[in-house]
């Protein structure tokens, strides 16, 4: 019996804000080829863009000499996306982010920013942050599954 086939697509973008859209568009193209519904593709686009923004801003600290590498692995039932940077990564795996407290933000008790991780976790089926073994090359791994029953 043959192994289920996985197809990889790799994109490397400079650590400059705006280039997350290149990775986002590529992920959308791959997802469309796999047969994802448009609403799930929109979810994926936002999650990939936010993961890349985190990699550019926090991982690579906007150093344009460093790249963000995005590996899309299209399997039979799911698309896995790894977004890698040269940063140390998160010290520990973040727990499930609660929904932002809009009242606290409106009262100025909480920064209006800081929505990215919540959006990533909410919009894909799996999100995992992995710190690089040598203090660099950390990545976030996202998985979005094909929901064939909903077609």
């Amino acid at each position, binding site marked *: 019996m043959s192994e289920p086939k996985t197809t990889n697509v790799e994109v490397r973008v400079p650590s*400059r804000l705006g280039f997350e859209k290149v990775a986002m568009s590529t992920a959308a193209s791959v997802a469309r080829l796999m047969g994802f519904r448009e609403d799930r593709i929109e979810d994926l686009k*936002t999650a990939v863009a936010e993961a890349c*923004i985190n990699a550019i801003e926090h991982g690579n600290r906007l150093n344009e000499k460093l790249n963000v590498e995005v590996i899309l692995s299209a399997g039979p039932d799911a698309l896995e996306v790894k977004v890698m940077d040269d940063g140390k990564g998160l010290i520990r795996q973040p727990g499930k982010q609660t*929904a932002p407290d809009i009242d606290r933000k*409106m009262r100025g008790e909480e920064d209006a920013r800081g929505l990215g991780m919540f959006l990533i976790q909410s919009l894909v089926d799996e999100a995992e942050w992995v710190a690089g073994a040598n203090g660099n090359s950390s990545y976030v791994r996202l998985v979005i599954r094909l929901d064939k029953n909903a077609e």
Partner: protein
Amino acid sequence: MQNETKARVEQLTSPAGHPVAILRFEGDIASTSKEAVLGTFQALPGGTGLVLLDFTRVDYINSSGIALVIQLLIEATNAGQKVCAFGLSPHFVKVFTMVGIPKYAGIFPTQAEALAGL
């Protein structure tokens, strides 16, 4: 690389006869959009009590852009202004709802529905 944010202001009168400022955005709404989003809002004439945000020509909003919208809502609330938004794609209606924005700004499909909702 960001698709520069453009913003223009139109003044209308609501069905109830109140003056309304419409901020029409175009391009991306991201961290580079501060002047277009907050600057345009802050430059509205004093006494503008009703504000509509038109996202019809916006196709990319990231978390930094959403944070700018929240900052606009903070300033509007502090000034006693009412804000509604329209023209968002179904995906961004979902995202705005996930972060709680509808509690402070009504979200409508079209300008006509937003004006009627003011």
